[in-house]
């Protein structure tokens, strides 16, 4: 096998990653030997039918779950060697998250939510960068509001801002537009695109929406725990075509 996932080019990646649930007859191979790397300053989408292992892959890459075998890394750090405490610090300092829903702490204001990872680390946020991020997601006027006073789209924008605020190595987004109407959804996707193109961030997004995937530089397709194929500079139409092929 030619595993040369060069860590100085890739922001993150997996080497022969395997994840098995259950035993014997009930054994499920969620990941069945996945090797993939995600380049810096690129927007990558992971797609696949449900049960293909795309969420599991993301959770393991993000240090939320552990592999049964194989390795995953963020930057120059192999996650498999890390303790629970070190994993937490890694998530805090090197990774940004955007979930499908319930992204924000209801008791904190938008601004406090954005700086939460840095507050947890006891670090001062970089003011210039923060301004840039807040400008990008267009939230200036809403910073003192609580999540309950924001619309769904605004909440997701705060979540994106939080993910970017600590200048992480990589941002993972799990169906970030899944709960939004199409207009808010495309707004969020544009912000993410913008963050990659103009702010040189690295984003990996799990989605099953071809329109969302079309915002990415590259799409990786998973099925049955394996990488089936990938595609550069996708369009919605080409992604849909590919999904059909995989489905067959």
């Amino acid at each position, binding site marked *: 096998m030619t595993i040369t996932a060069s860590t100085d080019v890739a922001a993150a990646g997996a080497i022969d990653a395997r994840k098995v649930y259950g035993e014997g007859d009930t054994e499920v191979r969620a990941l069945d030997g996945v090797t993939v790397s995600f380049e810096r300053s690129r927007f990558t989408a992971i797609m696949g039918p449900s049960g293909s292992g795309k969420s599991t892959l993301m959770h393991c890459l993000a240090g*939320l779950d552990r592999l049964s075998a194989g390795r995953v890394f963020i930057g120059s750090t192999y996650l498999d060697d890390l303790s629970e405490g070190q994993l937490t610090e890694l998530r805090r300092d090197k*990774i940004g998250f955007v979930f499908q829903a319930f992204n924000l702490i209801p008791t904190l204001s938008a601004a406090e939510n954005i700086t939460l990872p840095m507050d947890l680390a006891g670090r001062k946020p970089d003011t210039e960068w923060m301004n840039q991020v807040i400008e990008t997601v267009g939230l200036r006027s809403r910073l003192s509001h609580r999540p309950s006073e924001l619309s769904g789209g605004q909440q997701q924008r705060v979540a994106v801002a939080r993910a970017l605020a600590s200048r992480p190595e990589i941002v993972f987004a799990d169906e970030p537009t899944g709960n939004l109407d199409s207009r808010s959804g495309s707004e969020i996707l544009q912000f993410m695109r913008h963050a990659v193109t103009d702010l040189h961030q690295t984003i990996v997004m799990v989605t099953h929406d071809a329109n969302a995937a079309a915002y990415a530089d590259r799409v990786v397709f998973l099925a049955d725990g394996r990488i089936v194929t990938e595609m550069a500079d996708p369009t919605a139409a080409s992604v849909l075509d590919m999904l059909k092929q995989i489905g067959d």
Partner: protein
Amino acid sequence: MLRVALKDLLARKRRLVTTSIAVVLGIAFLTGTQLLSATLSSSIRSLVGDVYQGVDAVVRSSKTTDTPFGQPLRTPVDESLLPEVQRVDGVAVAQGVVEATGSQLIGPDGKVFGGGIGPPTITYNWTTDSIMGEGAVREGRGPIRDDEMALDFTSASKLGARLGDQVKVATLKQGVRSFTLVGTVGLGSSGDRSTGAKPMFFTTPVAQAISGEVGKYNYVVVKAASGLSQRDIADRLAEALPGQQVVTGAAFVKENQEQISKFVDILNTFVSVFGWIALFVAVFIIYNTFSIIVQQRTRETALLRAVGARRRQVLGAALLEAVVVGLIASVLGLVLGIVVATSLVHLMENFFTVSGGVAMPTVATFVFAVVVGVGITVLSALIPSWRSTRIPPVAALGEVSVDRADSSRARTAWGIVVLVAGGLLIAAGLAQLGPNPLVLVGGGAVAVLVSVALVIGPTIASPISRLLARPVARFAGVAGHLAGENAARNPRRTASTAAALTIGVTLVTLIAIVATSIRESADQAIDNSIRADFVVANADVTSLGSIPNDLLGKVRALPTVAVASPMRFGLMRLLDAKARARAEGVTTTVPTGTFGVSNDAPPGDDIPVLGIDPATWFDVVGAGSMQGSPRDLGPNTMAVVKSFAEDRGWRLGQEIPVFFGATGLQELKVALIWDQNIGQGNVWLPLGTFSANQLPIFDADYQIYVKARPGASDAELRRQLDALVKDLPTVTVQDLQQYAAAQTGPIDSFLAVVYGLLGLAIIIALIGISNTLSLSILERTRELGLLRAVGMSRRQLRRTVRFEAAIIAVFGALMGLVLGIVFSAALSVSISARNPGLFTYHLPVVQLIVITVVAALAGLVAAWVPSRRAAKLDVLRAIAAP
């Protein structure tokens, strides 16, 4: 519907347990005291019954005098009564009984045996073939010679005395005397059961002499000739001896049982109060738990409603849970109550001999436990359950909403109305209005607490939580900030959780403040008014009268002594218009008889009076300016403090009718009015007047105030005084500091007990905090998952939960401090009004800070389990939680 409710219940066993704990503890205390009471009563009943089983009738004086220290004293009868009784037709045996307190056994260490606590040591005369049952010889024989004595066998063995040993007795009237132990006695025909008391037996003349009742019996016991009933013989005796009181043996037994039961009752009331407090705290916890459960179940309930459940069915399901919780808790509480009773009985065995083991719960106790337990639980769950019926079916579809306190005006207005009403009730109670002031005060306090918990608390919970979080956030960063926001997000929940702690802290604060004020006031009064250098005093109240009469002379003879002034302590009943009006109006709840004078005396106010030596007394105390002169204090006069005289409308020179236990109605002239109330009684009698009117037990020096000659060394004087009391085990020499400490010492030991029992209420409150947090964490699972995902460490999460608990606890403690300070201020106004110049309000600032800090630490401890559980959450599953 029933099945749904039951299944739900079983699925949440842990919640069931935590909810029940509060009720379990409350019920345990209530039933525990009931069982204790039953145990002691039956034990006492059989004991007293056995002692007097051979007695058919008792002949005695009709006059009694209550003492401030225990059972009433009955005026003794003359020895000459015995032959008169014996001559009455139908009397088979009549025996004169000397039964006196005041003399004490001296232990091997030279101190009073048993330290003055426990069952009283009673002096009896020995009668061969006594018809009373307490004197059956177990070993040896009864005393025949005047230097012999017998003892209860348990006291003898505790004392380590064997037959033939010399036993020392600190006698009431004859100093320390030594006797040869010639026998041990006990109950039953062979004397093998302990009486549980500490009886000492002497020959009749010795028993009379050492207790100061020469030529007298306390009563005469009679055994009737066969064929005569107790009633018959009592009637014959009453007819033959019209000057005396005659009671049947059965009535006499009952009387004695009741006297001992009174003590047990007081103890029971005392302990049950804390049981009720625990249950009151439990109410808040149950209310809170059910509120949270109902809220968390909103979707489930809405779904039930959507598929066709009626409101009544929803209410029924919610209440069913309350019934089950209450039922389980009551039964567990009852079981724990048996444990409580057993340990209390164990404790009691220092005071009584408990026969027959701990009483088992009767059906009545069981019903009581279940009714109270289930009743309290259902009542507390009623409002939350009713709220659950208001959930519309459509709520099944939406997101679960976050609870927000409705700070509606109506709610606030009601809260203020209840608060003010509570305040007024307390004020009325403290002003002694109405037939039962204690109930007014208690009811008012409950109203204030409820309004604070349900209305005032929720209104201020959020801002105060945020305020408290600020310093925490400074050193703990975002964990502190989040803790504050979490405490603030649900003000109603925070307030009712904190209120449980508020109750305990209010009481602790109140008691701490009042006790400190009393102590400081006493110290101050002593500082201001006592000009003596040393006080020679009885070791404790049970050794009243143990300073021998010749001690004063010996002290005065010391070359280092400038002044030695004696003080005696007695009782007097006031019969003036004010006293009569009060007695008729029945406006007092203070148990009558505490300072009572006599059962056949006219109604009036009983007050303590001091016997003083006018020539020297004013050299050792500072009484301020005076009307009249100490020289005017001759026969049949008294001195009165100004505030008391004004209160009664007495003027200098006025003749005041009073009543004494020993001499009946007397008139005393007000010969001196002094200015400065110094905590030494309101009325002083010159020693001559005092001695002429008091019973022998009071007519001994209570304290001797000693002032050193100028230039004499205190150490030297102390040494000489110590030498004088060397052989008097019940007499101590105190300098002013020790004297002050001795005055307030009992307060401290009382406080220790109260704090211990209040600890229970506080522990229940902490369980409540723990419970609320567990439920809150369940509710916030996703949020916690998110926090962990974005990089909160387990430690930070644990701290967040713990700080939230600490903030809630401190919030509760602060409300308690404020209430405690307010209540104590009200109480002190009332105390000062009745004791002008004697009581000043002192805030024990350090103690109050300690209470708050302890509350904060206790909150941290309460959060231990929930915080660990929160930290252990699986991040992925938490995020995916519904």
